[in-house]
């Protein structure tokens, strides 16, 4: 490259004036394309037909349910006659159960607002990005933080007498303690699984557990005056 005088590096798109061009390839913009090595199939027909079969199977199940069970229909709406208990749709009964323990601004606004905010920010906080087990690294410090958070949460729920939310919290804390005592070398497959679970898994599973328990209690175990009843007590 000693006789590199017959061209000049510069910005020029006029082919008549400067017929020779240079392409600068810097280290970061390699022209090499990363090829996918993974097996692929055509969306049509492979995916579309499977989707059609899935949707049709669902339709068959729902049609059977619709033929066998009638949708509820009660008397004409009457503002002067309040049923006891007056229940929201089932997917809001977890919230209604919370309203039983906390003031509306907490249970009806703060908690659902925070849940939605938490769901939205999940991907932006690099949650679970490497999916490492919670107690595998920095075990002592993380256990200390876990003890503080778990006891604070349990005490808070105990003070407000929210036993419906306290029991799932204690069960989850127990399972997490088992996870802390497990390692990827544990003999039991279940404990190896627990040891590999990251923080986000525990938080989401606790949330799912609470959601299911509170919704089930609101749906099946609450009678007149929001008192506890067994489902078969009508």
């Amino acid at each position: 490259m000693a006789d590199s005088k017959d061209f000049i590096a510069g910005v020029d798109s006029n082919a008549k004036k400067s017929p020779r061009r240079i392409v600068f390839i810097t280290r970061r913009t390699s022209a090499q394309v990363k090829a996918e090595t993974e097996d692929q199939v055509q969306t049509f027909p492979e995916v579309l037909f499977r989707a059609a079969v899935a949707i049709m199977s669902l339709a068959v199940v729902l049609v059977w349910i619709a033929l066998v069970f009638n949708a509820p229909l009660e008397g004409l709406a009457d503002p002067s006659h309040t049923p006891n208990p007056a229940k929201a749709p089932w997917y809001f009964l977890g919230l209604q159960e919370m309203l039983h323990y906390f003031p509306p601004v907490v249970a009806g606004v703060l908690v659902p607002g925070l849940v939605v905010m938490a769901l939205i920010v999940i991907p932006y906080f690099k949650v679970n990005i490497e999916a490492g087990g919670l107690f595998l690294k920095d075990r002592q410090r993380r256990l200390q933080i876990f003890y503080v958070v778990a006891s604070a949460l349990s005490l808070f729920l105990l003070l407000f007498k929210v036993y419906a939310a306290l029991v799932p919290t204690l069960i989850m804390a127990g399972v997490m303690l088992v996870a802390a005592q497990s390692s990827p070398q544990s003999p039991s497959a279940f404990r190896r699984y627990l040891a590999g679970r990251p923080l986000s898994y525990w938080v989401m599973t606790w949330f799912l557990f609470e959601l299911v328990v509170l919704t089930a209690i609101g749906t099946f175990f609450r009678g007149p005056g929001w008192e506890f009843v067994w489902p078969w007590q009508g």
Partner: protein
Amino acid sequence: MAKTIDQYFDNLRGTRVWRSIFRSGTGSSTLKRALAIQQNVFLHLFSTKVRTRMLSFSATWYLGTLTLGTFLILVATGIPLMFYYHPSAPQAYADTKDLQFVVSSGLFLRNLHRWSAHAMVFLVFAHMFKVFYRGAYRAPREFNWVIGVVLLLVTLLLSYTGYLLPWDQLAYWAITVGSNIASAVPVIGEKIHFLLLGGNAVNANALLRFYVLHCMILPLAAMFFVAIHFWRIRKDGGLYSHGSEPATVRASAETAAAPAKEGQ
């Protein structure tokens, strides 16, 4: 020799009228199959090829597809229900009674609509948790997760607004309980409550507002976000896109894929 049904179908797809409508002609080559997706205004939201791993049931449990299925059933049953329904009190209740006892198949239509609605709420939640546990919200798919959260809220609102429409005791008091929560918002709570119901309590105005939201605004919002939701799957590299996998999964996937490649 008699033609098979396939051959008749191939001939149909080769006709000028068919091609003028669907733009792609006959043939089952890879190109034609890719064009069948790419040249269709609805299907082009999807990619023409997907990773084979994505087909397995355990990858998705088909929860997103099934949610779309419930939505399609709800549109298909909701439109005939609208033909028999007046959003005015107390006529709405009489119409619901008529659907139950007078309109042919009215009971079935209403049953299917109601149970599909419950199924859709359940499936949306299930889909969300499945995506979370699969870690499928990782970059570059963060925003599709956010659109999913919006769709969860739209679904809850769709179900909630539909709950009032039969105008029976169950509907009236469920909406009263739910809408009272809006009053608990600090400072502007009462204003939101009034805006939602068109009054200080659930009344005929609330019924009309919920009807317009349920049959017009929320379904349009759902379709808008669902379209983006599907399109983003393709744009973000599809299911099991390399970048969205955690390092441990990427490593194990490469070792698992290696022997399969040798076998080809």
